[in-house]
């Protein structure tokens, strides 16, 4: 990979250095305690897969990391910025500094329908990061080319298939050059025959050394790309470890039941 490759992950930090450390993360919606003290860490170049039944809180973890939800407690520490302790209310500046470390790929893509594919991708780099437009366009074109959408750059999102839209969603996140990519069930809204294309792109990114956290129901995929699998249920981490261990030989009963149910749906 050349140094100017837009797909190159940001930073030259040695592998295995933690990009993110989360401790004691708590979040409630009203009386419903969704996260009860979650600890996580993701190292440079690693892929963390969060799995678990719906309502287990895994999506809320991602949303807290990106500032889409504000945690009620806990410490979120990204490498290179001051850790944010949610024991006291965080300032807007702190929240923005956290948010800028990561970029979210949404289950329902959430592309901007009134902007072309290219405009969707360069919106963040140009409008927010104030990078030169020509440079942003060049990088965006190259990223789109990498995910096989070079010929779609001037089309509008509604003219694309779900799989193509999600690949644009991934490129939009990549263009921000975040230290951590967040994927919230990126293939759950797709027709089955389109899932493969999107997973293929994510797998390539993992192989190129992007650091990411991924919420998914695709266990086979998690086993293939993840460095660590975290199984959550009821707002707590029940079991974590190497994918082969958690997915093939889970120690906890709840993990065993969940994995069994997903692998044998009938």
């Amino acid at each position: 990979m050349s140094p100017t490759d837009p797909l190159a992950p940001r930073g030259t930090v040695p592998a295995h250095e933690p990009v993110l450390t989360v401790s004691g993360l708590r979040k409630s919606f009203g009386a419903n305690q969704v996260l009860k003290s979650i600890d996580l860490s993701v190292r440079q170049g690693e892929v963390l897969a969060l799995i678990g039944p719906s309502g287990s809180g895994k999506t809320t973890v991602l949303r807290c990391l990106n500032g889409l939800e504000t945690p009620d407690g806990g410490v979120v520490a990204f490498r290179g910025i001051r850790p944010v302790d949610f024991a006291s209310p965080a300032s807007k500046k702190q929240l923005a500094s956290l948010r800028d470390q990561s970029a979210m790929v949404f289950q329902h893509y959430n592309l901007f329908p009134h902007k072309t594919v290219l405009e969707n991708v360069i919106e963040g780099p140009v409008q927010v990061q104030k990078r030169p437009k020509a440079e942003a366009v060049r990088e965006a074109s190259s990223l789109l080319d990498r995910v096989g959408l070079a010929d779609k750059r001037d089309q509008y999102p509604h003219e694309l298939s779900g799989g193509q839209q999600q690949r644009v969603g991934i490129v939009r996140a990549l263009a921000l050059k975040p230290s951590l990519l967040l994927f919230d069930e990126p293939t759950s809204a797709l027709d089955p025959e389109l899932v493969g294309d999107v997973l293929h792109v994510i797998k390539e990114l993992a192989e190129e050394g992007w650091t990411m956290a991924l919420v998914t129901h695709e266990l086979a995929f998690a086993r293939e790309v993840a460095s660590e699998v975290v199984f959550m249920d009821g707002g707590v981490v029940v079991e974590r470890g190497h994918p082969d261990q958690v997915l093939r030989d889970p120690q906890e009963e709840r993990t065993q039941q969940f994995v069994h149910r997903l692998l044998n749906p009938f």
Partner: protein
Amino acid sequence: MDIDWDLVASSFWPLVQGGIRGTIPLSLASFFLGLVLALIVALMRLSGNKVISAIARGYVSVIRGTPLLVQLFVIFYGLPSIGVVIDPWPSAIIAFSLNVGGYAAEVIRAAILSVPKGQWEAGHTIGMSPVTTLRRIILPQAARVSVPPLSNTFISLVKDTSLASLILVTELFRQAQEIAAFSQEFMVLYVEAAVIYWVFCLILSSGQSQLEKRLDRYVAH
């Protein structure tokens, strides 16, 4: 009844001029100012601040709950008794702008709320502030949704400007009244005025469909 076609012909141009010099500029100015006001009121309504939101709700309630003619008379005939004298034209523009502001605020508020929450979240994740997200992501999508109801507001406004004739603004309907009073041909003049209003509104309606078609490219189907 015999129709005096000479009168129809000779009064046609003065009526159209009343439209061009009175009705149309009055409508355009009031609609533009009203929309600016409506956007502010809509955002106040959506604000988390209860006091600001209550002020906006009160404003909308008063405007929608009182007749436009009464609002017009309060400004032109009422205010002078507390020492505020405003000329006919500015009075009319103030009254119509306030009125449009009240009705369009609800349209704009609903249009903003109709944009899916995911669009706000996508703006957030690429690093945009809420204000930038509103301006670049939410409002362009809300604009498309609000074209049909705002067009209705505008067409209503064009017809309502005839009320300005009652505070001495020379517009289309006042021209008709003056010529009718002079010629005593009330039926001819008022029907002629009605036809001209109708043609204005037909043109506006076709403009609305053009605009909808153009903006359609930008929304998901």
